[in-house]
């Protein structure tokens, strides 16, 4: 072979490896949704089971086309703030040549797919918090705004090599503690404030009742599937260069050097730390498994750089923080049915701040980008809170005023499955 032919063959091999890699991250990430669906259905009482599962699947189904319509464009066009860069966003317009089968472009479809699945994850996180009383139409609109607008904006600002939070503050969030988990958790909080608790959750004296879901085994199996799916999620947080002009090491989303091995060490260690932390704090099977999510979300922002022992400790702390935060929310009569605000929102805060506290001294990965700092992480945390909470609160408030947010007490008593005209277990099991 001539040198030119070898060069061409290498380029094609690299390009197709890239395509294969991201294609399968998309497939693995779908397991997150299988897991969240099982988690939610198990956490629902029998009479609400199918409504909870249907709601979760519809979030997935609606995010995909809306992310195609405008979500990808928002990510590409908004790294400077609220003023769009139309030139940068041109490749994300649905009728551009890149946004469909194109023999000269092996990358856009798989990157779009991976980002779409990140978006679906945000909606799935919110979905669990609001089970057993939210109405379907309102939920779908909220899910689209979270997954195809709010999340994309935060990602464009803080999870993009040119994002203004990155270039001005050195914001470091490689595994999306803030840009996915905080956004979703605090969007859910905004919705929960307007949605109100499930009927029967709180007594007149302010005390809370524990509403047990109908299948804790289903919830636990779902959580393990979410953990499996997170391998696809985090794998897609890495950049695999598909051309020989930039050969060499993997990079994180900001262009900093890293490895898949780094992610593997720290994902597993933080998952284990969270499970053990949740178990140590509560000895409750639900919080032991949710502790896995608390752990990995707590370590996610620094997956590229944590010492694995330290990732375990951060995850352990997350596994303790999650149930404490859930208890505090309960005192404020915020009925978060699956702990989404505490697991994703509060542990997301911990994850961002942990990077600011414990990850000082690293050189900048690009010229003009400030190094990691506590101030940058703290400011980033505030921005993430606002991008999540404000749209969730405002939109759900509008729906509340319009009377389309919350199912009536009568429907909640009969079960939301009546609205989809089906029973999860028609023969025997009664709630």
């Amino acid at each position: 072979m001539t040198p030119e032919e070898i060069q061409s063959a290498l380029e094609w091999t690299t390009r197709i490896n890239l395509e294969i890699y991201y294609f399968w991250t998309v497939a693995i990430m779908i397991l997150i949704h299988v897991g969240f669906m099982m988690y939610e259905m198990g956490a629902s009482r029998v009479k609400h089971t199918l409504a909870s599962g249907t709601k979760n699947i519809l979030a997935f189904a609606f995010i995909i086309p809306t992310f195609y319509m405008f979500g990808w464009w928002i990510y590409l066009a908004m790294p400077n703030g609220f003023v769009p860069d139309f030139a940068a966003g041109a490749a994300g317009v649905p009728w551009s040549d890149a946004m469909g089968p194109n023999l000269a472009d092996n990358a856009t479809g798989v990157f779009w797919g991976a980002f779409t699945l990140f978006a679906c994850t945000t909606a799935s996180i919110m979905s669990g918090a609001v089970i057993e009383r939210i109405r379907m139409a309102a939920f779908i609109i909220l899910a689209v705004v979270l997954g195809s607008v709010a999340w994309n904006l935060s990602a464009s600002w803080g999870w993009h090599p040119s994002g203004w939070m990155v270039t001005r503050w050195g914001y470091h969030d490689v595994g999306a503690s803030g840009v996915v988990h905080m956004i979703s958790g605090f969007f859910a909080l905004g919705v929960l404030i307007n949605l109100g608790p499930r009927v029967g959750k709180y007594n007149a004296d302010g005390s809370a009742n524990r509403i047990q879901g109908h299948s804790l085994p289903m919830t636990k199996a779902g959580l393990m599937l979410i953990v499996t799916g997170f391998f696809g999620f985090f794998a897609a947080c890495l950049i695999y260069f598909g051309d020989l002009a930039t050969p060499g090491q993997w990079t994180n989303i900001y262009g900093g050097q890293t490895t898949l091995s780094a992610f593997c060490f720290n994902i597993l260690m933080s998952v284990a730390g969270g499970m053990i932390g949740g178990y140590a704090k509560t000895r409750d099977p639900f919080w032991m498994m949710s502790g896995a999510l608390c752990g990995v979300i707590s370590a996610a922002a620094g997956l590229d750089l944590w010492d694995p022992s330290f990732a375990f400790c951060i995850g352990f702390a997350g596994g303790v923080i999650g149930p404490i935060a859930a208890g505090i929310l309960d005192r404020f009569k915020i009925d978060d049915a699956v702990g989404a605000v505490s697991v994703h929102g509060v542990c997301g805060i911990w994850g961002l701040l942990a990077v600011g506290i414990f990850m000082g001294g690293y050189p900048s990965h690009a010229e003009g980008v400030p190094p990691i700092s506590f101030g940058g992480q703290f400011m980033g945390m505030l921005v993430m809170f606002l991008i999540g909470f404000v749209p969730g609160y405002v939109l759900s408030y509008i729906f509340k005023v319009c009377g389309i947010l919350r199912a009536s007490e009568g429907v909640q008593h009969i079960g939301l499955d009546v609205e989809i005209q089906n029973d999860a277990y028609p023969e025997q099991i009664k709630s």
Partner: protein
Amino acid sequence: MFNSSPITAWEGAAAIFTWAGSGGAVLWFWVMVILCLIPIVTSLRAENAAERAHGAGGGSAAGASG
């Protein structure tokens, strides 16, 4: 706040994790070991309490046929 970086430049860097090559990595290793031991001890205590309350024929037969 804590300077945990083992590197000053990315060129030629190898072990880049926090506290690599320093006592910090050993410290956090032992913290991890202790954190693993705590729930084992608390589990043992809780199980012993359950054994005292329900063991030695005092519990139901559920699960005994396993």
